[in-house]
């Protein structure tokens, strides 16, 4: 096959380069990172900085790099994507090689990688979805927020998402930042979205959307929300949209939040003021709103209501909050129920990782690899970094810190002789070559990048992502 032949050329080039640089120098530690999102790149950055011999290969399942920075960060948050500039510098380091379109666990196994590298750092994130496990969850228009985010961001596996936006009300189960991202994308005026790198196919569907009201539902109360204040403030200031916060949820909170640590205090205070004492400016902003978003609390979903085919509402059980520690109260289900009619249900209750190899010690309950400070339990030379080890929480700063931390741990283990120096990356590359894997280099990505930015420019967007794997590979190997 034509592209395959060209791809072999790339592999040969990589091999030639490798041989030229490293032949005869057996003490160069080769390490590999599995996954090219923020965790992978920040770990690689630390490794390259802390050891001036080390060579880092970054394997990526998709033909394109950057993981959730490309496929998770909301299109209307372009500033967050500036981290790509630093990742690009890391990838362009001559001791770093991006190897895209390689699925570790399928194209090459963990044990094969172990034989070729001094250390293997797993940073493949948390791409599985937590489920509600309630009746009706599988009917039409019950959509995972993860898939919805993948859909508007051009993730190849989500590009054909089955979602119907021809309905007035959407319920989002969950009160984290993903829930707010999804609500914001559903409610933002389309002309604003049209200037972002949101995929054109989802923009077309959102243009025809009839959603006027988005209800976000949490199991516990306002003191337990997981979203952060920046995202909340954005929602409150969203053009053409009005927040619906029920005063009874916030009454009395002013005497509690005063004594909380600053982040929780300011977050709760913002909800309180929006609900109880809105300003003139707030009213002005909300008066002409045609859409609204609502925060509901103390409700656990019991059942998705449907007409036999499609979701028509959610039946909730009403919770009571117990415990004297107001911030960490637990919810207890009462006999009372409440049904909320809606035509779309988005599930946003968290992610979990999967086990790419059966030998990996896996914490099934929390959906993470069993590890201590990045060292995978009982597996010499295997590390994990980012969400696959910490669980899917926090902003990019947390992943960055963890990436640096794990990088330092690997370097320390290398220094103290805990790791045997292995320099057989060529073997891994040859294995992939023999198996006919069409790898994608960072130079290939630059070609894709250029086409995407040009396509975007032509329609007034910073980028138009290509969501088709074959198309991406054709460009990469052209």
């Amino acid at each position, binding site marked *: 096959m034509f592209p395959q032949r060209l791809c072999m050329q790339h592999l040969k080039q990589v091999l030639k380069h490798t041989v030229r640089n490293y032949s005869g120098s057996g003490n160069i530690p080769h390490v590999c990172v599995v996954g090219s999102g923020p965790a992978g790149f*920040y770990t690689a*950055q*630390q490794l*390259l*900085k802390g050891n*001036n*011999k080390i060579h880092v290969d970054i394997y990526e399942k998709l033909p394109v790099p950057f993981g959730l920075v490309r496929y998770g960060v909301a299109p*209307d*948050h*372009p*500033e*967050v*994507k*500036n*981290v790509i*500039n*630093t990742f690009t*510098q*890391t990838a*362009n*380091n*001559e*001791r770093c090689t991006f190897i895209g379109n390689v699925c570790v666990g399928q194209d090459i196994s963990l044990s094969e990688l172990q034989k070729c590298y001094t250390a293997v750092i797993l940073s493949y994130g948390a791409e599985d979805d937590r489920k509600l496990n309630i009746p009706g969850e599988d009917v039409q228009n019950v959509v995972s927020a993860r898939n919805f985010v993948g859909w508007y961001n051009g993730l190849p596996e989500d590009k054909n998402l089955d979602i119907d936006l021809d309905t007035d009300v959407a319920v989002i189960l969950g009160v984290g930042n993903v829930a707010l991202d999804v609500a914001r994308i559903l409610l933002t005026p389309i002309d*604003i979205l049209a*200037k*972002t*790198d949101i995929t054109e196919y989802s923009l077309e569907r959102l243009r025809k959307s009839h959603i006027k009201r988005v209800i976000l539902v949490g199991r516990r109360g306002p003191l337990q929300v997981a979203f*952060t*204040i*920046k995202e909340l*403030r*954005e929602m409150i*200031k969203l053009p053409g949209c009005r927040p619906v916060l029920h005063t009874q949820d916030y009454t009395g909170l002013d005497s509690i939040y005063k004594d909380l640590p*600053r*982040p929780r205090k*300011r*977050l709760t205070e913002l909800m309180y003021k929006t609900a109880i004492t809105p300003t003139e400016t707030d009213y002005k902003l909300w008066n002409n709103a045609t859409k609204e978003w609502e925060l509901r609390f103390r409700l656990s979903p019991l059942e998705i209501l449907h007409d036999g085919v499609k979701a028509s509402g959610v039946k909730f059980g009403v919770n009571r909050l117990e415990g004297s520690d107001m911030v960490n109260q637990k919810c207890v289900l009462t006999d009372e129920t409440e049904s909320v009619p809606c035509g779309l249900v988005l599930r946003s209750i968290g992610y979990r990782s999967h086990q790419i190899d059966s030998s990996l010690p896996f914490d099934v309950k929390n959906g993470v690899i069993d590890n201590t*400070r990045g060292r995978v339990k009982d597996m010499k030379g295997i590390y994990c970094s980012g969400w696959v080890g910490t669980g899917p929480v926090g*902003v*990019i*700063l947390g992943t*960055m*810190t*963890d990436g*640096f*931390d794990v990088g*330092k741990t690997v370097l320390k283990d290398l220094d103290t002789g805990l790791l045997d120096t292995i320099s057989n990356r060529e073997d891994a590359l040859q294995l992939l070559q023999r198996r006919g894997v069409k790898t994608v280099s960072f130079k290939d990505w630059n070609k894709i990048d250029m086409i995407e930015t040009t396509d975007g420019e032509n329609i007034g967007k*910073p980028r138009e992502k290509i969501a088709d794997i074959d198309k991406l590979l054709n460009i990469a190997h052209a």
Partner: protein
Amino acid sequence: MSGLAGMRCVVPKFAQFVMRPMALTTTCINRKPNILLGARRFTTSVSTRAKETVSIQFVCDDGTKYTTNAKVGDNLLDVVIENDIDLDGFGACEGTLACSTCHLILEQSDYDKLPQEPTDEELDMLDLAYGLTDTSRLGCQIIVSKDMDGLVVRVPDGVADAREP
């Protein structure tokens, strides 16, 4: 041969990147200093002669000190980059108020002298910073002025180092 070149990657030269996407959110970055305000504060008049520099010291939690030549009118993130100071991950969002990686801690008296109080948007980001204090600011929001000569700011560690064995 590759050692030094490799080191470059950790100090991003943001200024060289032209691809800064349009900011579409409501956050606005106050790059211009505010000209009013009281006598005890740092003067904020930016010299028209430009290139005027003052000395500002960055002190890391591990004791490392970096003394910099800071251009009047630049922000402290610019200063770190211009002076090639090697601080891991500093300024990840490149001064667009989308992260808290340029978190700095000032002495109370220096904090009080700053001509501008932090905006809600800056405080929102600081809320996510590790080791937040009452005199924390984001480096990208502090504009260097003439009377900052001799200023010392602390660069707090990430949580990672606190977890080191």
